[in-house]
């Protein structure tokens, strides 16, 4: 643990600008004109009921989904420009999935080095060094030679974070990173994300972890039905929501055992 000096992750954390974003599948409108600004180094949590479009919004940012209308800009690159080199954009954007999506036929170390080698063209030793450094950051340096299937869900997700970090991203996207985890492993993943936020990474996080959103996020965006219903400082949106829909959602999430009677 001698290399535990606080290394700044994102040397140049990127800003994100989303303007009037529309996305539909056939006749189903998922995003109905979303606009959102994220400053460099800012942590923004997207919350809302399932089907509200928050995951779709996140996936539009690195073009895993193609929006029909609207603009997305990361730093000074317009992602939605039809001529953009999408592979070059994705190199700068780390993505963490709900289901981890580690490569099951590769060791943990290989999971972290394969894109460094093939995409960034780093040497084997440089890729390995970066990988081991990032494994250490997520507390799994001893698992480098394990197979992903040998790890717990929480450990796999930490490896997935380390894999994304190994590409030295300027922006990290988290798509419900703790939703598929056993409750006792959620904390480890969240604490790594917390460290990352402290180090100044720009982060867009879709989550149902309200405590995390309240404590770590600079801003919280509440989405419902494909629109942004409410956004603001984390403590304001979660502590004192202004809109009826936000209040209903939060009371259900924060008190899941409470019986809700439909208001007449």
């Amino acid at each position, binding site marked *: 643990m001698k290399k535990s000096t606080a290394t700044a992750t994102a040397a140049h954390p990127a800003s994100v600008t989303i303007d009037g974003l529309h996305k539909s599948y056939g006749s189903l409108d998922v995003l109905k004109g979303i606009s959102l600004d994220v400053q460099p180094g800012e942590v923004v949590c997207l919350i809302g009921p399932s089907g509200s479009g928050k995951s779709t919004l996140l996936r539009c940012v690195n073009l895993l989904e193609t929006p029909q209308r609207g603009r997305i800009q990361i730093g000074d690159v317009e992602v939605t420009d039809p001529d953009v080199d999408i592979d070059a954009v994705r*190199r700068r954007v780390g993505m963490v999935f709900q289901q981890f999506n580690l490569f099951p036929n590769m060791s943990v170390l290989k999971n972290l080095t394969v894109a460094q080698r093939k995409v960034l063209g780093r040497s084997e030793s440089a890729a390995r060094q970066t990988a081991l450094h990032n494994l250490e950051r997520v507390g799994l340096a001893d698992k480098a030679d394990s197979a992903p299937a040998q790890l717990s869900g929480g450990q796999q997700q930490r490896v997935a974070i380390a894999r994304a970090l190994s590409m030295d991203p300027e922006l990290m996207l988290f798509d419900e990173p703790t939703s598929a985890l056993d409750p006792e492993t959620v904390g480890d993943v969240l604490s790594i994300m917390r460290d990352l936020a402290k180090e100044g990474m720009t982060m867009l996080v879709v989550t149902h972890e309200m405590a995390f959103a309240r404590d770590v996020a600079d801003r919280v965006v509440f989405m419902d039905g494909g629109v942004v219903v409410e956004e603001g400082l984390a403590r304001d949106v979660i502590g004192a929501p202004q809109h009826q829909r936000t209040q209903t959602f939060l009371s259900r999430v924060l008190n899941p055992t409470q019986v809700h009677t439909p208001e007449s």
Partner: protein
Amino acid sequence: MAMTARQRARISRGVQYGLLVVIVVALVFIADWNTLISRALNPSVMAQQFPQIITVALKNTLIYTALGFVAGMSGGILLALMRLSSVAPYRWIATLYIELFRGVPAVLVFLALGFGVPLAFQVRFNNLVTVMLALGLVSAAYIAESLRAGLQAVPKGQYEAARSLGMSHARAMVTIIIPQALRIVLPPLTNEVILLAKDSSLVYLLGMTVAQYELTKFGREAISGTGAGLTPLVLAGVCYLIITVPLGLLARYFETRADARSARK
């Protein structure tokens, strides 16, 4: 009638073993062992088959199988990519091809290539080319379906993860998707090679010189020439097993190795 589930299971197992023993014993007593040995397992007839059954027949079966597999794999990869293409006519052509060649007996394909095509187009392939084409055309249809299923069985998240790391479509396919698909496709591909080894016996339809005989033709000729009974065919059967059983074992070895690598603990 107070039997526990375990007692019932034990009795049921006992009945099944008993039945097996009865059947085996009955077969042993019913069989006419003297005739069986002299007609089907005759040692002196067996000795006569060597060494040609190995140096000619087994060798040719292996060559035909290998040629068929190379052609079938090439065609299969092409067809699988066409099936997954975003260009609709490619998908239609591939689907039509696969339905046609999966649905028609291999015998008809051999006859068509051996006699129909030369008549229709005034061309005459040499036998090796015809064998390669006929086996390849049929197996390509099956291989294409196995490959397509294998590629589609790799979870979508694997592709998304690869692309999210900045890999191009081609890079993601080659580095991440295809290696995982190959693992999935290995058992059906092994099956295909085994089927090819057996289908190569259809080569006799094309008319062969002695040097081109494969196992089945070789065995049949040995019977008709000498009145040697069924022994040559039994021997040919054993030779097929010499090819196919190790293939099955090899595939299982790779499977368990791949499973062990990605298995939990």
